[in-house]
């Protein structure tokens, strides 16, 4: 039998492909995309396909893992390694992939039902561990693939086939929940704003640890208009708060307004008010990002951008370095080890 310190074959046998320059087209699989025409998923697919070639990561090192739902068909359309798993479990499967292989670059694609309802447990535990993966949540506040039931992010009163008199449940706010689990990277963007989407995905792709991104998107068929107040460009100046690191929290059209403090609560102030807060995505204290996550439509503009981006130990890196240390210190072959476990000879 072999020694415990031999390099495993996956390290030994796999070589990187040549450092060819990749383009968006290299990430397009041959599969016909089958989302409804006009679905926000198309924009997200395009932007992720645009982002990947800029990372300098060989295509074969990229793994896209999804759960179940409209968004979860995503891996089939990506010419990378892909895994369309089961409902809610993408993050748990991705954790196994990441623990097994440090050389892989993993994206988890999920939806509001997939990640927050059936997969809620994996959502919080993956983020709190800070597993090195990108967690992209397509939030359209509805169950689409099962033809329109309210989801954990549907606002109270949402009328669907399963809530004919309107939903009575309090919705989850994914950003607040992610921050509650000590997320190291939290961002929100809009499928209808490809430029902003691209910027956020770029930052998420480069984060070490779990990068959680909520992408707000419309469901044309079952929840049309759910984010009209943001998607409508003519209203966006008043309804969106684009947050940029080191810049004041300002919004509004001709009349600029800012976000200030009223005690511990947010308040809208004049744009030139000295109390306008300055965005700080690297703030170690999650309190600021949490405060920001409580800005809700229609009382406040909805923050878009990176809420929090901090550096913390990465779970799978720590696990691997622990194993690597033990292997390096080990002087015994497996057979030698077996003979040292309290044995006797006959």
């Amino acid at each position, binding site marked *: *039998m*072999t020694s*415990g310190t*031999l390099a*495993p*074959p*996956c390290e030994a046998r*796999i070589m990187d*492909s040549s450092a060819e320059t990749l383009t968006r087209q290299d990430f397009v*699989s041959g599969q016909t995309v089958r989302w409804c025409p006009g679905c926000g998923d198309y924009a997200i697919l395009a932007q992720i396909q645009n982002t990947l070639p800029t990372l300098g990561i*060989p295509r*074969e*090192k990229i*793994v896209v*893992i999804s759960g179940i739902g409209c968004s979860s068909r995503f*891996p*089939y359309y990506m*010419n*990378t*390694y*892909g*895994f*369309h*798993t*089961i409902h809610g*479990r993408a993050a*748990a*499967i*991705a*954790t*196994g*992939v*990441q*623990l*097994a*292989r440090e*050389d*892989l670059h993993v994206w988890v694609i999920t939806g509001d039902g997939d990640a927050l309802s059936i997969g809620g*447990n*994996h959502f919080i*535990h993956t983020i709190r561990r800070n597993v090195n993966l990108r967690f992209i949540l397509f939030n359209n506040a509805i169950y689409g693939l099962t033809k329109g039931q309210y989801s954990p992010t549907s606002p109270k009163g949402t009328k669907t086939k399963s809530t004919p008199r309107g939903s009575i449940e309090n919705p989850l706010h994914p950003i607040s929940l992610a921050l509650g689990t000590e997320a190291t990277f939290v961002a929100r963007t809009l499928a209808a704003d490809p430029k902003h989407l691209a910027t956020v995905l770029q930052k998420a792709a480069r984060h070490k640890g779990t990068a959680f991104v909520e992408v707000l998107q419309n469901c044309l068929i079952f929840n049309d208009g759910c984010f009209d107040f943001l998607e409508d460009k003519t209203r966006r100046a008043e309804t969106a708060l684009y947050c940029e690191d080191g810049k004041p929290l300002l919004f509004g059209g001709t009349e600029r307004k800012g976000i200030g403090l009223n005690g511990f609560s947010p308040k809208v102030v004049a744009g030139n008010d000295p109390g306008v807060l300055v965005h700080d995505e690297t703030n170690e204290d999650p309190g600021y990002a949490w405060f920001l996550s409580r800005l809700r439509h229609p009382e406040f503009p909805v923050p878009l951008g990176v809420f929090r981006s901090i550096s913390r130990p990465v779970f799978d890196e720590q*696990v691997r370095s*622990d*194993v690597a240390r*033990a*292997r390096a*210190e*080990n002087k*015994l072959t*497996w*057979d030698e*080890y*077996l*003979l040292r*476990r*309290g*044995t*006797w*000879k*006959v």
Partner: protein
Amino acid sequence: MTISTIEKDAVTIRFAGDSGDGMQLTGSRFSSSSAIFGNDIATFPDYPAEIRAPSGTVAGVSGFQIQLADHDIYTPGDHADCLVAMNPAALKKCLPELLPNALVILNEDAFTPGNIEKAGFASNPLDDGLLGEYRIVLVKITSLTCSATGSLLPRKQAERCKNLFALGLTLWIFGRDTGSTREWIRSKFSKNAAVAEANLAALEAGYSYGETTDLADARYRVAPATVRPGTYAQVSGNEGIALGLVAAAQSARCPLFYGSYPITPATDILHELASLSAFDVTTFQAEDEIAAMCSTIGAAFAGSIAVTGTSGPGLCLKSEAINLAVMTELPMVIVNVQRGGPSTGLPTKTEQSDLLQALYGRNGESPLVILAPQSPSDCYAIAYEAVRIALRIMGPVIVLSDGYIGNGAEPWRIPEPDSMPPIVVRYATDPDTFQPYARDPETYARPWAIPGTPGLEHRIGGLEKQDGSGHVSYDPANHHRMMELRAEKVRRLDAFIPPQDVYGEKEGRLLILGWGGTFGAIRTAAERLRAEGISVSHAHLRYLNPFPSNLRRILSRFEHVLVPEINLGQMASVIRSTYLKEVQQLNQVRGVPLKVAEICARARQILNQGVRS
């Protein structure tokens, strides 16, 4: 008075006390000493689900039974020749398990009116004649322990060393020395000299107490067993599983991944593997059973030898994800250390009632391979074999261990280096010929194309796949074909696995057919009956799906087939439906192993009545 020595070929000893009394430790140390002495041993830890059930009550009694012998034995014994009971409740609980004239050592200090009442005795058992048929030895174990440890520890802590006093005393009675236990205490408490010294003092005090008092009318001597030469270690089934998995991964030169959620009685596998990271073992304590299974699937997708372990309720939670493994045809092992069910059932007790769940407990047609170890020392080989098969056919393999095997321990002969069949992993690498669902013509395995391999980028998932290309397919004929391919992949493994062997005549009147943890009881029963001149054969299945290819022929050569199981007849019904062979049943589902005597009685009954099949 001269103390005589009774020569015995086998003795069964039971240690029992409160669940905080350290009886598991006493039992396992005594087992080690006996194994090192050269006896064959078999152990049965029997403890309550509660960590510290109300002290002094029967519900809180933790027991450890061990049989030692001068010959090969397969069970921890039906009834005890010797009991060491630390309180009245332990005595009460074990009374039905004692042989007449058993030696009973009681901690006299614990027989207070309060404890006697708590144990549910109507009057003091020490003077009401209840114990008349036993040889009773009263020892003030608690107070003797405290005076032995002197001022080394405060009284409360000193009392906790009383299990070592009991151990020392028992070692003396059975003529074992205290050397290996002294060594063990020193290394275990190397960071706390006072505790180490106190435990050593208690151990020696117990041993000397036996030597210097007219303690018992007799000591026992059980000669060493004649066993196959080699190097041995005492191993529990759970340890054996862990070691076998690492051995397989080492042979395959692959990292081992073990994703698991704590669950009794399987958690010790996680503990053991967590200590083996030096051999490229990654353990992951997941947030739930589902995540444990899913992380295992992820690790398998990424190229590791991937394993999860659980017990019955966990297997329920994992079933949807196991089906994903069936559909995506990824190699992995799922260890189920069965316990009493349904639901939470009897968490610390043994049972064999997950067979049908393992075979059929998933939606759709979901064939997978099932193996079952037959004893603690068989776990190493079965775990190794499970990995070998999973890699050979690219699919999940369930190992059905049970609480008795998992917690029980026996001497295990460490395999010679290179004596296990080598495991060879072949990842796909050629982009020109690669198809995700192309099959090996012999094994029907699909290629293992792991992320990171240039040119083999592909997508898998739970949706039905097109034969060959692996694209999502809703084609009716393709779905039927894929169902048959997945089933055939498992079925044709019967040509690869070894044929079933039969102990005793290869044909005759009665075959006892067992599987899993009942091996010891059935084999002992068969030996006993055969010694009486009754022709009984025994076949014990380790491969449950597919069955060995010669099983049909074996069954056809016996007039009667008896299937003893710790369930209500699950294997019996599978045998009937697979082979159209009528079988007799023996079913006892009490959370404890089957008794040899019960199997003998049932066998005699079948042979005497001539029950027609």
